[in-house]
């Protein structure tokens, strides 16, 4: 480091110091609550999920079908043109297995997650979701998968209306 500098400052403490009161601190939590307007693109996407369908938007200029849908094409900078239903089958582009839950808690059984290119969306256009009914070591890039939906009466118009994607085993078909 700069040969001129003699002292680097800062006073570390441990979690225990805090919990045992050696480091005085105030606690607080904001009330930071929101009702985000979904807008036409996400609003329709969620409404279709409730019906057990996945929908995207097509830009006629570049021809791409985009999921999640948006009302504008980021490449052409113009409004997208039409709604397109996407199939609920697809191909794993990349995956991983999480031993961490949302609050960094440790999990015994990992959550397997993947970016999945859905059939009917343009090449490379994937969505993030979970995989199920499969072991971590069986998953591979290029694996074919299909959505497993919640029963219709339990769907609420959310990305979680799809429980997970499961592998399409040999002979099971599942899309084309």
């Amino acid at each position, binding site marked *: 480091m700069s040969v001129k500098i003699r002292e680097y400052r800062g006073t570390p403490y441990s979690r225990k110091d805090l919990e045992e009161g050696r480091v005085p601190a105030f606690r607080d939590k904001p009330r930071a609550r929101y009702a985000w307007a979904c807008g036409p693109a996400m609003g329709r996407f969620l409404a279709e999920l409730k019906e057990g369908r996945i929908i995207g938007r097509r830009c006629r200029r570049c021809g791409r079908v985009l999921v999640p849908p948006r009302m504008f094409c980021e490449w052409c900078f113009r409004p997208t043109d039409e709604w397109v239903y996407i199939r609920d089958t697809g191909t794993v582009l990349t995956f991983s297995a999480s031993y961490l839950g949302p609050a960094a808690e440790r999990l015994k059984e990992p959550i397997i997650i993947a970016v999945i290119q859905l059939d009917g969306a343009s090449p*490379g256009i994937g969505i993030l979701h979970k995989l199920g009914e499969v072991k971590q070591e069986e998953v591979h890039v290029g694996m074919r998968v299909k959505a497993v939906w919640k029963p219709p009466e339990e769907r609420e118009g959310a990305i979680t209306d799809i429980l997970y994607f499961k592998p399409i085993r040999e002979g099971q078909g599942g899309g084309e």
Partner: protein
Amino acid sequence: MASVKRRVAVIGAGITLFRRRMRETGRELSFYAAKMALETAGITIRDVDAVVCGSAPDAFDGVHMKGEYLLDGMGGHNKPYVRVYVGGGTGVFTPIAAWWHVASGHFDVVLAIAEEKMSSCHPHPQKAFTTIFDPIYTRPLGPNLVWIFALEMQRYMSVHGVKKEQIALISVKNKRNALDHPCAQLPAKITVQDVLNSEVMVWPVQRLDISPPSDGAAAVVLAAEHIAKRLTDDPVWIEGVGWCLDSTYWTNRDLYYPKYVEYAARMAYKMAGIKNPPKEIDVAEPYDPFDYKEAHHAEGLMLARKGEYLKGIKDEDDIFARYGRDGDLPICPSGGLLGVGNPIAAAGLMKVCEIFWQLRGEAGKRQVKNDPRTGVAQAWGDLMQVGTVIVMRA
């Protein structure tokens, strides 16, 4: 396009210890770093015309509009002061914004400071990290931050056939380099086996593949040419700046390669007149919050071809021979985020400080052996999305 006419130099740098938890408030940490930067530049706050703040999400420190909260600790009281922000890319972006403050001709001396106090979010910043995801189509899946890195790492490995054993060598190198950094939080002499045996977080990411959350601050002083030459015999010139942001929809692009880093690097190299990066750059600090990221980013910086950063590297000797301090091209001689710690914005600015010290020959035990003239620092952030690059010359 017009061209840049005013030269801007870095003339001082400061940094605090990086630690998991610090007693000081974010303002106080900022003060330590700012004060050290001013002192090493040989000036006082009265000589500073404007202040640029860099800090990552408000949800870490737990203060809304935290730039405003931090400002008097950054010396911004009664001065032009602004906070810039590009997620994890902020640390390198802060001096870029300070650069345009000076290069525009409006100011002669500008202080750039980056701060993060991640320990405020208790017990762990993970919950704050989840707020970076889209609330409608991602957050309901219960993501944690490591997910996206794991998906990217997997894609990188699978496209190029890179092995985890190779990637782990980056962690070995950087943590070992950090043994010589007086501010380092997690310096260590570890082996590849230690990395591979460490707890699996989100496969293929294991504990020792990851840099730790930290508290800390860093600062640099920038000055216009006529001031810099008056104050120091060793100004370090900012010769290239670049930044680039890719689409929100990270699941809609191939994660194997950070095109946005390449674009940012091209912008900075063009400005600096660099045509052959691996030949013309003597020392580099690519952003390494995870070990594979160093490889990913070095490729984006065009210091290696796509997928070839670790080509032919099989063991510790190989990686130190190639990227060690006396290697072919020293990479992360500071110890990087993996070794020094990752107080997000401050970590990026720590890399700029390191290049400054390396180019001045003031890096002490960490000094690289190739008498460096040109260095590059880079940071990355958002949803696998933004690259920020700065090229400096002695």
